[in-house]
């Protein structure tokens, strides 16, 4: 069991209380946040026992778990452009055992992380009806053990007090109203382990997708101030210093000050490249959507006929100047399970992104052929 060094005596009683509470599996009811000293940070991660049946066992969070307030050793992070998951919001965190750290592995490659590293990703909605509340749906973990990444998924209860390990997959209905007043109802898909593996793999090996320098080289507002994320990871002791100064970094897809081309490429990288790159689930199709490959129009599918002509009028994957003839646009606009792209991870259309793609295609000069 890993636990960081604690200041003895003064905090011992409090620690005992916390441990006692954990053993009896009752929450610290009514305990105000200030009473939990920030240094009482004993994340629980025993490689022989994980994944635990409940999320609270890991002790990633202080206070009521639904507040998602990480203990000091659990570091929040955020990719510059995120994956679309039916408009769900996400909290992302990383934790590593003391004394080990990740190393730089290339701008466009997952940081090489040590055994015991855990990536934590909580999915939630605000404005959930009825009641206009926040509802946390699931917290997914990717943890490294014996050199391999493994999956765990915790499904939150209705009371929002606990989440339970469940890798069998399920659906849950969610109705919510967003900040623009738009109400949507979906059947939200919580993945089965085999679904996790479909996207999170390189050849046969399970693999994270987000934590690459290209996605992390940006400022994040931490509780103690704004800082570049890679710098913060080094300060936290989670990243070996000495990575290159100039990282080929993505842009935020919805940052209107950035060139449209870059915004599209960043979106395609985070939403498509996990399948459309070498050694991935659909590497047998010609597109290559990773950030460091997708500036090439051929890799984007520009003027390339689709392999699978599910709709004959879609003459090219990207038909310059004509989004209505582009298979890429067609599939991104579809909700049919066997047509839509991405294939998994969404059940509704990301209309804002589709609109961006349409503008991108329609403003391309010189039609194909």
């Amino acid at each position: 069991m890993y636990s960081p060094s604690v200041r003895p005596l003064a905090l011992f009683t409090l620690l005992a209380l916390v441990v006692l509470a954990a053993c009896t599996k009752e929450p610290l009811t009514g305990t105000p946040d200030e009473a939990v000293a920030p240094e009482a940070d004993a994340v629980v991660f025993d490689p022989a026992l994980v994944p635990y049946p409940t999320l609270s066992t890991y002790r990633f969070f202080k206070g009521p778990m639904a507040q998602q307030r990480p203990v000091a050793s659990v570091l929040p992070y955020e990719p510059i452009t995120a994956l679309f998951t039916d408009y769900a919001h996400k909290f992302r965190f990383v934790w590593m055992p003391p004394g080990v750290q990740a190393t730089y592995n290339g701008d466009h490659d997952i940081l090489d992380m040590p055994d015991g590293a855990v990536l934590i990703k909580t999915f939630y909605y605000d404005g959930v009806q009825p009641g206009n509340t926040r509802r946390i749906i699931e917290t997914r973990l990717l943890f490294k053990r014996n050199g391999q990444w493994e999956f765990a998924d915790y499904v939150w209860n209705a009371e929002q007090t606990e989440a339970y390990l469940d890798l069998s997959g399920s659906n849950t209905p969610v109705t919510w109203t967003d900040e623009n007043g738009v109400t949507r109802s979906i059947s939200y898909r919580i993945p089965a382990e085999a679904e996790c593996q479909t996207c999170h793999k390189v050849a046969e090996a399970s693999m994270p997708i987000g934590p690459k320098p290209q996605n992390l080289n940006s400022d994040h507002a931490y509780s103690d101030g704004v800082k570049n994320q890679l710098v913060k990871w080094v300060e936290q002791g989670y990243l070996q210093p000495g990575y290159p100064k100039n990282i080929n970094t993505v842009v935020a897809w919805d940052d209107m000050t950035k060139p449209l081309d870059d915004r599209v490429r960043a979106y395609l990288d985070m939403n498509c490249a996990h399948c459309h790159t070498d050694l991935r689930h659909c590497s047998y199709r010609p597109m290559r959507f990773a950030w460091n490959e997708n500036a090439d129009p051929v890799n984007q599918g520009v003027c390339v006929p689709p392999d699978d002509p599910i709709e004959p009028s879609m003459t090219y994957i990207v038909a310059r100047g004509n989004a209505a003839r582009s298979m890429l646009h067609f599939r991104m606009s579809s909700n049919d399970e066997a047509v839509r792209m991405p294939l998994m991870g969404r059940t509704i259309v990301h209309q804002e992104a589709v609109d961006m793609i349409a503008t991108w295609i329609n403003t391309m000069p010189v039609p194909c052929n």
Partner: protein
Amino acid sequence: MKHLLLPALALLAVGTARAQNTCATALPVGLGLHTVDAINGTQPASPLCIGAAASMAEWFTFTATVDTAMQVTSFLSGYPTVDTRVHVYTGNCGALTCLAADDDTGPGYSSICNFNVTAGTTYTIAFDNYWTANGFTFALVEVAPPTPPVELINFGSTSIATSGLGALDMNNDGLDDIVGVSTNAVTILKQLATGGFQTSTIMTTPAVNTPSWSFAAGDLDGNGWNDMIYGGGSGATIMFANSDGTGFNQFNFPDNPYIFCQRTNMVDLENDGDLDGFSCHDVDANVAFVNDGSGNLTFTQGGYGPTCGNYGSLWTDWDNDGDQDLFIAKCGCDPVDQIMRNNGDGTFTEMNVALGFADNHQSWSSAWGDFDNDGDMDVLIGASSSGYHKLMRNNGNSTFTNVTAGSGIDNFTGQSIEWTTHDFNNDGWLDIHGGGGMLINNGDMTFQLDNTVPGNGPVADLNNDGFLDIVNGSTLRLNQPNENNWMRVRLIGTVSNKSAIGARITITTASGSQIREIRSGDGFRYMSTLYAHFGIGTDEEVLQISIRWPSGIVQVIENPAINTLHTITEELQTSVATERGAEVRVFPVPATDQLTVSGIAPNSLVRVIDAAGRTVISTTLSSSRLNVSALTAGTYVLEAITSEGRVVRTFSKE
């Protein structure tokens, strides 16, 4: 696309055509260039000669002065290309008939439309705003008549009232119907003996999984009405038909186990007379839905190959030993094809390396059929992306030879996820459909490409003319018949599963023999007819139909009539095929009180099944004698499970 202009055209002035908003006010135009400012005519092009409806059009007429070939084109060098669409008609306004149309033949989505004209006839031309209302310039020119494309088989085009996923007889009248599925309803277009279809919409409870990836049908519970498997991206849902086929009851497995379904099938996995279900799993081990014969389906996983890239399962008896073997077209994370021999005892042996099938090409389905009519199943494994097709000839001794080179398929670059085989021209040789074309069998393991055919879809005889038709979504593609003769066979199992899935049918004419199997789920996505179809060319007689039922019973019909559907029910007063368990005997026949069963191991599981397919005795035989005194007089089947698998013998009781 060659673009011919008569030299004289250069002297013709460019005519600026004013917008002509309706058919009645269509502007007569002659040869030459014409400019349209914008498409804003209020009368849309109708009937539609191509594509879906638009809202506006510009109308022109052209009156031919000689018999010749004409072209209307919006692709003109020196002019910007515009995304146009054009329809060409004969007839009068209000009674227009489509003659030709074009959308994107020209570069930049411009239109190039060729049509033949006769002197004195007026042709109406409408450009519509389906893609854009922008103005453009077009030309009307005379061209040399094009060489007609190789069109070996013709298909018509009719709209139907549902998007068809399946084409099979749903109301047991011997006529194939069309089935469409939505979350809340099943739509059946019932083929009428008088022609056309009658729409029947049956509401269901909202389907937990819809057939977005594949659709299979057959009589799973044996109540006489076809049930359906919906293969969805997260799981499979079964729709069981009620007792008269007027409704469906939804069934899902407890806890809705995750299946990323690909091809689904119905197949009798254990050959116990109860039809089971099967689904390929894209990202995990394949799954089976095992039927215990008492109305219970159990979900199982594993035992049918590896755990990734399972796309196109096809069940076929490739080693001719009377049980269903499995071929899986593989793609993606593990693209090496699988071919598994059924060992007869519920286990399968992978033989891809030994048989030469361990290919690393991307394929989603395969077409299994006897392409050389020598009595065993050959296969074309079609590529789904840049890669190669593979034609394998079955040598009849459980080996295969790669005969792709020189077959004509080696030069075929079309690719698709769907590959199926049927005799589309009824000449007695199985053709292959896929890759955007049809490979017409020349009868010698070479094939000729016809690339004017429709795309893949469920296949059945949908107008009862003996020629197999294709459903493409909401369009019915009726196969235009020729003079060739044919036969269709409908099988009803009694001891075997009621749909007779897995049955082998052989017909013999003066020209030789052909074989078919009854299958549920071929190609990748669709469900085709459960009734076997044979073309027999110019043969006027069929000497016999021989059926080898899954139970092992062999039934022969002598001199059946041609050009009709034969409905054959499994009977028990016939001989039994006995490759395995040849030493098993039952006597005396007829039996009175005791039936002696010899040649099986002590404590073997035996069943006695009556002529209606009901199990009347089920027991473990400790001695060699079975007490049959309680049975009523009649004919029965004894089934024994031996070390070699299932063995069946008939006997009568008096």
